[in-house]
């Protein structure tokens, strides 16, 4: 990603020196750099906003500026299962496993993605659900067609639970240069480091991009409980039993018939 970013930077610098037309740049920000998961967490909204800057060197353009905002969660390993009928019952029979699947992936665009940028650009930048690099690991001798079916199923199931989102016309221009979009983070979101990338396009040409980090973490009681269960599993288990014994004992006393 770093290599790619610096490469793009280089290209934009290069084009700047030849035709000092590509002078638009982008300043973006997010409403909060952290999201805390506490016991009353039911999801959160992150506002991504910013400004498209034009300087004196900018020429008037025939096309409108278009934007894409991509929010990507930490990678996970996922398996897509397909139930098949075996001896009268439906069981998980065929599977395909993918490594490095973003646990959350939301794309917001100011117009439909294919209008903002060309097919090739979207693929190169990994923008859009169809352009996620989902390569199955150890899927055996699956046909091309089967692979696509499993891949599509993965995307569909993640969309159903709100963890994959693709929205066009979701970025509002508040003025010709100011923009904002609201990204909904559902309650079943994974914790970790998220990246938010904003892309500025004009006439299907990528002019500028900017990236922010968003940190999602459990906090307070939720965090302590979770890390105890992972770091001190034995102690966690003993505590759970002690809690159960105490509750049962207390109930026995409260409801004791004399």
């Amino acid at each position, binding site marked *: 990603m770093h290599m790619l970013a610096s490469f793009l930077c280089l290209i934009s610098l290069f084009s700047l020196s030849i035709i000092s037309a590509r002078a638009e740049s982008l300043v973006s920000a997010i409403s909060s750099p952290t999201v805390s998961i*506490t*016991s*009353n*967490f*039911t999801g959160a909204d992150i506002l991504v906003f910013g400004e498209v800057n034009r300087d004196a060197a900018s020429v008037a353009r025939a096309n409108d500026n278009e934007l894409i905002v991509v929010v990507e969660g930490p*990678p*996970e*390993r*996922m*398996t*897509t*299962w*397909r*139930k*098949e*009928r075996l001896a*009268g*019952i*439906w*069981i*998980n029979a065929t*599977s395909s*496993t993918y*490594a*490095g*699947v973003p*646990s959350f992936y939301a794309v917001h665009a100011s117009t439909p993605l294919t209008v903002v940028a060309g097919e090739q650009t979207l693929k190169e930048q990994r923008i859009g659900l169809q352009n996620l690099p989902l390569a199955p690991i150890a899927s055996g001798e699956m046909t091309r067609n089967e692979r696509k079916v*499993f891949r599509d*199923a*993965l995307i*569909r*199931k993640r969309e159903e639970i709100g963890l994959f989102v693709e929205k066009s016309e979701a970025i509002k221009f508040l003025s010709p240069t100011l923009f904002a979009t609201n990204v909904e983070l559902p*309650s*079943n979101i*994974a914790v970790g480091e998220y990246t938010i990338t904003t892309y500025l396009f004009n006439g299907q040409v990528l002019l500028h991009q900017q990236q922010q980090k968003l940190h999602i973490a*459990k906090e307070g*009681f*939720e*965090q302590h*409980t*979770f890390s105890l*269960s*992972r770091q001190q*599993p*034995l102690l*966690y*288990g*003993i*505590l*759970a*039993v002690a*809690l*159960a*014994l105490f*509750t*049962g*004992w207390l*109930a*026995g006393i409260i*409801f004791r018939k004399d």
Partner: protein
Amino acid sequence: MQLYLPIAEIPVNIFVIFGMGGTVGFLSGLFGIGGGFLLTPLLIFSGIPPAVAVATVTTQIVASSTSGVIAYWRQKAIDLKLAFVLLCSGVIGSALGVWLFGILQRLGQLDLVISLSYVTFLGSIGGLMLVESIKAMMRRRSGDAPVARKPGQHSWVHGLPMKMRFRRSKLYVSVFPIFAIGSIIGFLGSVLGIGGGFMMVPALIYLLRVPTSIVIGTSLLQILVTMSAATIMHSYNTQTVDIVLALTLMIGGVIGAQLGARIGQKLRGEQLRLLLALLVLGVGLRFAVNLVLEPEDPYSVVVVDGENA
């Protein structure tokens, strides 16, 4: 009111969970059962991941059996020696169960095994109870006295070697059947998230001929220890015990159980058994339908490894 569960990693409505704990607690007080076999499916059907549901219910069972054990302890209605043999085998059985649970989870077949086991066990036990309670009701209607157990009547179980004497239960039997009962129920308990009281009680009465007055307290003590061990092993092995979910279930459960026990005393034994049989069959059927009917969407996605993929 929504409450975020730290281990299940989803928010749940605390009143819904509380209500489930209360309802199952009510039924368990009514029928004198642990209710794990009802609670685990309820949690699964309401969207809690099966692994978390099973492991967490083992903790809830510890709480629900504690007050019972204390009560029977005071009445000295527990055969400690019998309970000890049962729970030794129970812990071995549940260790095997937790081990298998982890393997099945990795293979992606845990849900299938849970469903199949529920269909098999609930189907057969519910069927047996239904037949038995209908017979009892018919006997009552025709006015016949129930067939009493003849003293000195022995089954093949009593012919096995390595006999042990259990004074409290007035028993002299081989350790093998006790070991088998304890380990099988411990095993099922940790794989299915059930205490197994509804299997243990008839097994002790019909197979070993333990006096009815001793059975419930002894079985409860065995369940208490086995499920405590299962909770610790699940915490250690699969890290799927959700303490917040468990506590919510416990509080609902103990309150419901008190209400159930009071109403249960007003109903007749065979009526209760008939109702329980229908309940057990119903849960089994619900799993069977899920297995047999074509799923709406045959595809499902599981996150195999969240933290270091």
